[in-house]
């Protein structure tokens, strides 16, 4: 399992120092590594939409940030994206850990998981899904570049094919 390290290295190469997050067990693998690396500054959010505001403020000040959250938490961000990041053209990467697809044990994660891509599409936000280790480099590098050239948030979704699922019934 090298994906957490690969993802962090790509963030670093792109000068993305600030990580705003609400954790989940998948993102925790990235966050635990990032916490040991002085390059990154981590900000724990109480609710995901705060991250849209924080990253907007950081960008206005000349610093790049990434918002890490679960698909459930993306639902908490919709109006902040629609009324702040999109019209003011604030670019950043959203790294979204997908729930509700292959191997889901919790029925209450399925509806938001199913709505994730449709909501991104309705907002006009581009999104790309990581399913295999060998896709990470191209997809992450490309998504970050497109975010900053288009001056819009772009989502990269971590699927359960890549990160696995809980062994729980």
């Amino acid at each position: 399992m090298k994906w957490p390290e690969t993802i962090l290295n790509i963030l670093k190469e792109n000068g993305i120092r600030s990580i705003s997050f609400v954790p989940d067990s998948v993102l925790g693998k990235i966050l635990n590594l990032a916490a040991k690396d002085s390059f990154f500054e981590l900000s724990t959010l109480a609710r995901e939409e705060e991250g849209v505001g924080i990253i907007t403020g950081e960008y206005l000040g000349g610093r790049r940030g990434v918002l890490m959250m679960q698909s459930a938490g993306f639902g908490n961000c919709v109006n902040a994206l629609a009324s702040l990041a999109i019209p003011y053209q604030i670019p950043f990467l959203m790294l979204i850990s997908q729930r509700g697809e292959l191997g889901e044990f919790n029925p209450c994660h399925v509806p938001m998981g199913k709505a994730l891509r449709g909501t991104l599409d309705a907002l006009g936000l581009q999104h790309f899904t990581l399913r295999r280790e060998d896709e990470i480099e191209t997809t992450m590098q490309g998504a970050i570049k497109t975010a900053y050239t288009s001056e819009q948030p772009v989502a990269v979704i971590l699927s359960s094919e890549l990160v696995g699922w809980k062994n729980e019934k």
Partner: protein
Amino acid sequence: MINRLEATQYLLKHLSDEPIIASCGNPKFDLASAGDRRENFYMWNSMGMASSTGLGLALARPDKKVIILDGDGAILMNLNSLTTAASKSPPNLIHIIWDNRTYQITGGQPTHTAGKADLAQIARGAGFEKAFSVDTMEAFKQLLPEVLSKPGPWVVVAITDDCGAPGRPPKSPTYIKHRFMEALGSQR
């Protein structure tokens, strides 16, 4: 009770090039009326996000004192942001909340600060050590020099009337953004 426009004008007189994040609703109207400047970031919507955006800017730019002009309705929508800001505690953050105890822009329906909620106490509970409430212009004037000169983070809850301001800020979000970033010398 404080007149919000008068307090905003008084604040601007004591600033030079400090960036201001102004919430949607009346804080941005008062700020535009008191004086449009490149360092003003006006939010036309995204209710509640001024507190988080100001925090992000303060973290990215420790060289600048960052001022948030918020409203009671807006901060009540994002109270959790106070816990995040207090945890990060950037000393250059000044969060001013104009509290007129109503949703003024929608016709004056009472907010919860008209009932039992006390925003300065909430800020202290969130972890702000410097969170004060002022309800007269004299008290605001007395507190402001300390707020602008000593390390924070600060929360100042100013109890205001509900007079409206005549000014309107520029409306183009991208114009507001580019002008603001240029003024701050921010790399894109």
